[in-house]
């Protein structure tokens, strides 16, 4: 027995395998970070020499028993999975995110830059009519809401952006949106209108959010 023990010790020190607790940590980290289930052989190849993957897996499996996450076997590979009974908590992760349509983004941008803005004004800027659905979608997302009615004939409703909108876009206020000149200098506005080449116009290009729509759209062209 003595001789056996000695041999064991010698072999261990030769391979210099880390302690089992350390091996378990390593397996844990690999299984956590890897995008697919990992086979025991892969694990073995990634761990330092002399590690006992089988034992580390057993320890890990026991450690996660009854937890919110389990170590599960998938074919001949291993993976960490959330406990089946907590599946009801997972629905948010499975929400499909889709890019907003161009119409919606443009409408949203107009509301953000020109708020409070009426539907007619949105249509004037976009040059096409705005579908009911687009407005509804943005309202449903709680990115825009109804503002004060405009004190003009017909008292049309106006739209403004919401807190939720500011949150989503990481803005402190709608006034923090970059102005036209800034968009241009960031290369977002590629075509430079000819008049801007003339001196003394830079002030007119600054996008003043609170300026009226009608006069503003033209100023670039004629000033």
């Amino acid at each position, binding site marked *: 027995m003595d001789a056996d023990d000695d041999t064991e010790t010698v072999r261990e020190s030769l391979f210099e395998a880390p302690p089992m607790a350390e091996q378990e940590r390593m397996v844990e*980290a690999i299984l*956590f*970070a*890897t*995008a*697919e289930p990992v086979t025991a052989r892969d694990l073995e190849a990634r761990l330092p020499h002399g590690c006992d993957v089988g034992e580390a897996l057993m320890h890990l499996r026991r450690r996660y028993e009854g937890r919110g996450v389990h170590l599960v076997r998938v074919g001949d590979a291993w*993976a*960490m*999975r*959330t406990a*089946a009974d907590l599946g*009801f908590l*997972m*629905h948010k*992760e*499975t*929400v*499909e*995110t*889709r*890019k*907003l349509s*161009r119409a*919606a*983004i*443009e409408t*949203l*941008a*107009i509301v*953000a*830059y020109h708020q409070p803005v009426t539907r007619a004004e949105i249509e*004037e*800027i976009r*040059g096409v009519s705005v579908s009911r659905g687009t407005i509804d*979608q943005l309202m449903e*997302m709680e990115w825009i809401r109804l503002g004060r009615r405009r004190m003009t004939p017909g008292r049309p409703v106006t739209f403004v952006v919401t807190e939720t909108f500011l949150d*989503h*876009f990481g*803005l402190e206020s709608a006034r923090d*949106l*970059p102005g*036209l000149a800034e*968009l*241009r200098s*960031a290369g*977002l*506005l*590629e*075509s430079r*209108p000819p008049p801007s080449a003339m001196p003394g116009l830079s002030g007119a290009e600054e*996008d003043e959010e609170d300026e009226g729509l*009608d*006069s503003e*759209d*033209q*100023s*670039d*062209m*004629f*000033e």
Partner: protein
Amino acid sequence: MAASDESCESRDVAARLEAEALIIDVDGFEGPLDLLLTLSRTQKVDLLKISVLQLAEQYLSFIEKAKQLRIELAADYLVMAAWLAFLKSRLLLPPDPAEDGPSGEELAAHLAFQLERLHAMREAAAKLMGRDQLGRDIFARGLPEDVTRIRSVRYTATLLDLMQGYARLRTRDEFRPYAMDRDAVFTLDQALEQMRGLIRFAGSWTDLASYLPEGWQTEPARRRSATASTFAASLELAKRGEIELSQDETFAPIRLRQKKDPAHGR
């Protein structure tokens, strides 16, 4: 005395060698402040204690050397050189009581502060990049869950999308004729109408500008529009043979008069 002269000279030589080495990678510097910071390092002392005067001299000799070697330096290097020369004179000459503004010492202290701050930011940047980074040393969940796939769609957009969307609209607006504000637009038809009424009185050469209608002569947007359409109208009338146009040289006033013997009598 002699000994100190000698050591002074050898320091000069060393400095000159340094400067030459620097010149070789002048492209490697990110502006004059960066160059100054590198020069200050060769002084091997605390940035707060550097001799700004000595630094200014090193910088000036660097620029001088670069000029001798006909190396083209960006203008901001030369601006800095001029400023350092100014600083040097302020530091060396007794203060002129008649002169306003900060003293040489104040200017020097601020330069030292800027250098120290840039140096500190460089070090902070290095420390930051030396941290364990996500995706390199630290890892996120590799296998996000897809337990229950509830088919709800969440629409999303980034600030970039928003800005680009707006930029797209605004760019289009700049060229969109039907969005024009009618109040500030004097149409070609209006201009023709206006001129027809007036040219029969234009027996002699008159400036085109005098045909601008009332109320369109001062406000820039209106004036611009009226000038454009009046000019276009004058071309149209000239084409029809109703008037003659003349301009002495480029950008000189355009003058017009009624054609004495119109080809097409109306």
